[in-house]
């Protein structure tokens, strides 16, 4: 293999792909990336056995070939080289690197040891608008569970139905759902994709084009994403997502509309004492205002009153303030809508300007 490539391109691609390399691999080949020069392009492949990436970059291929090298080492070297052209040449079990005033050799392994990584999507792939998908994902991904004892909740549920894609995440205490229409969607499917891969995709966002392509390989239990010269494959989480449709309240007894910034500030104030008492804050809904109070046996107590538009009966409900804080963090409009039924059933939180977004939070029982 002999390739001439621009340092900027190569370094960026290595930065991206090295996130898919397992950090604590028992097998040396798994901490490697695979470089593959073929048909006028250089492909960089990496996998942690859960997910994989194949990133293509333009390069001048002087001789085709492939080799796997340690991801960390090669990234450190390439990242610190000066801009401009870099020459890479494989030699036995390793690669030689030449740049202006630099020469080095990184030892590697034969490419045959490297796991099989998907390089392209099948004919069945379909496209989605990348902005919409990634924006929607970033609004709900925070509600996924980090608790591995219930694997299905560590992923985001994708529901394709009647030209609408709904994304659902939940950790058992709260639930987020966001939907958007795409007239070109015509499949009906439910699939759960791990959070880790999706958050990587969100991070890559900046360097993407307009479209993202999705493909599902039923037999391999795999979901594939393709955008701007990258193909990312992920395993699909097995199992049934809990029946969340049932827990979305059909009717709402009390609706409260509050100013988002005021609400954020009130929660910040309450959190000062709530931290000592299991993060619990109390919300009291009155006729035309809402009181947020918290207390700590050790350090004191507080009460914040804020104006609100209230429709329905007054009530008192307790929440973990962190859940409210995280929800408010992703809200964009000035007003937040809260729908409550009683102190023991989940509250419905909405961002006023985004009717397709829904967030449920389970209150704390006292």
């Amino acid at each position: 293999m002999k390739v001439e490539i621009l340092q900027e391109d190569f370094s960026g691609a290595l930065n991206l792909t090295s996130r898919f390399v397992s950090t604590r691999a028992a097998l040396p080949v798994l901490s490697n990336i695979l470089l593959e020069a073929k048909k006028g392009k250089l492909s960089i492949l990496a996998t942690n056995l859960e997910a994989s990436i194949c990133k293509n970059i333009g390069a001048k291929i002087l001789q085709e070939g492939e080799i796997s090298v340690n991801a960390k080492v090669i990234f450190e070297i390439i990242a610190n080289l000066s801009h401009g052209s870099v020459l890479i040449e494989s030699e036995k079990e390793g690669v030689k690197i030449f740049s202006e005033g630099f020469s080095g050799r990184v030892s590697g392994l034969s490419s045959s040891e490297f796991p099989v990584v998907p390089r392209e999507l099948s004919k069945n792939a379909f496209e989605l608008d990348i902005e919409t998908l990634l924006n929607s994902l970033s609004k709900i991904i925070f509600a996924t569970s980090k608790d591995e004892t219930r694997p299905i909740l560590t992923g985001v549920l994708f529901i394709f139905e009647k030209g609408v894609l709904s994304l659902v995440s939940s950790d058992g205490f709260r639930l987020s759902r966001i939907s958007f229409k795409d007239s070109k969607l015509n499949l009906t499917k439910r699939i759960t994709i791990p959070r880790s891969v999706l958050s990587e995709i969100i991070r890559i966002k900046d360097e993407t084009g307009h479209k993202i392509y999705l493909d599902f390989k039923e037999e391999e239990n795999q979901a594939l994403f393709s955008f701007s010269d990258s193909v990312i494959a992920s395993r699909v989480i097995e199992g049934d997502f809990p029946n969340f449709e049932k827990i979305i309240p059909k009717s709402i007894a009390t609706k409260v509309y509050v100013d988002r910034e005021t609400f954020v500030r009130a929660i910040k104030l309450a959190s000062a004492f709530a931290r000592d008492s299991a993060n619990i804050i109390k919300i009291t809904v009155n006729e035309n205002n809402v009181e947020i109070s918290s207390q700590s046996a050790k350090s004191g107590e507080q009460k914040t009153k804020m104006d609100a538009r209230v429709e329905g009966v007054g009530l008192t409900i307790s929440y973990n303030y962190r859940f409210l804080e995280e929800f408010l963090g992703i809200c964009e409009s000035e007003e937040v809508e809260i729908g409550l039924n009683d102190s023991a059933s989940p509250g419905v939180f909405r961002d006023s300007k985004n009717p397709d977004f829904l967030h449920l939070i389970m209150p704390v029982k006292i």
Partner: protein
Amino acid sequence: MKPDKNQIWNQVLGSVKVSVSSAVFSTWICKTHLVSLKKKGGDRYIAEIGCLSSFVKATIESRYFGLIQDSLTSALGFPCDLVFVIKQPESSLNTNTQAQTPLFEVEMDNTYFVERLNQSRIRPSQVFENYAVSSSNQMAWAACDAVSKNPGSSYNPLFIWGGVGVGKTHLMNAVGYSVLKKNMDFKVLLCTGEDFTNDIVMGIRNKTTQNVREKYRKLKCLFVDDIQFIAGKDAAQEEFFHTFNAVTGAGGQVILTSDKPPHQLMGIEERLRSRFEAGLIVDVGNPDFELRCAITSIKAQEKGLDLEMNYVSLISGNLDSPRKIEGFLIKLSSELKFRQVEISEEFVSNLLGKEKLDVNGKRRIPTPEAIIDAVSSHFSVNKKALMGPARARMVARPRQILMYLLRSELHMPYADVGGLIGGRDHSTVMHAVTTITKLSSLDSKLREDILGIKSAL
């Protein structure tokens, strides 16, 4: 004996571990599991091996296939083929219980479902899950199961008939329950033939016939229990005819139950009868002993009674209808509660004995003469001919039945039976008894005859 999957796989993993480096083993091989192991003709096995991801699968398939196949072959002692699939081990999917998820434990909107059940007059206690199936009701159950999965298209109408207390209503109710469970907003109504008639009458009286029509004709599923009650009621039949056409015409499902098959229903208009006959007609027979056992144990469980098998068979052997069983179990559980005693065979049979007296008044033991009379009148055969030497079939078969009854009901000795019936040899009687015993399990006509005679006693 079937080999234990986990044990076999541990054996395989153990032997593979020796042949590869520990890094290779821990990365690729140790997280696999054996999904299934099937025999594929002769002495060859086919093993399905689950891998966590497609990367693992591809690597193992291409690199360690031979190694695993050899180890599995030697572990099993038979040649085997391998198939790789991507599947999480079951154990990892079942650890759900530990994680706390209060959000999903909220009362699952039960109230709405219960409300819908009430509106549709479906009883939540009669569902497929607690319906026991045996040969006497298998056909009816299968038909109902098919209807519940695909209302309106499988068998329309479905006509279920059978005696009292055999489970017709339970089946129909179960269809309604599962249809509603799938879609709570489905318009389902279960009513009796009498309810329907009453509604019509009220409609005529209050000049609200239109409302009654609205109520019935827009249904997605109409279940009418005891349809025979509309017999002889012309207005109700007329209305039902149109309702029937409206519901089935709109793709709705109709299920009817009755105590007789459609062609035996008296006082039903011809056009209605022909509609009933257009769908599937299934009958539910009286439950046999095994089915009664199953029913007894289901009902006992529902009542929180922990009955051992010997009590179950004692109860089902002595009571012939599910309703009686139900009543007996209620009695049993309350007696046990009041008297604070442990259940025992004596206690149960004591209570059963009382049961018999309660139901039949006194238990009579028939005389031989009574049995002879009953047989002769049942078959319209002269008593003299029964006792006589004639061996024509029309006399001989009743005679055999008579001998069988004398023997089985009165436990008379063979010789005495023979003496009573025209001085026959005891071996003739023995032959008759074994013949009838054998035939009664095969010939339903014969069974009916015997039942008829017994009830005449």
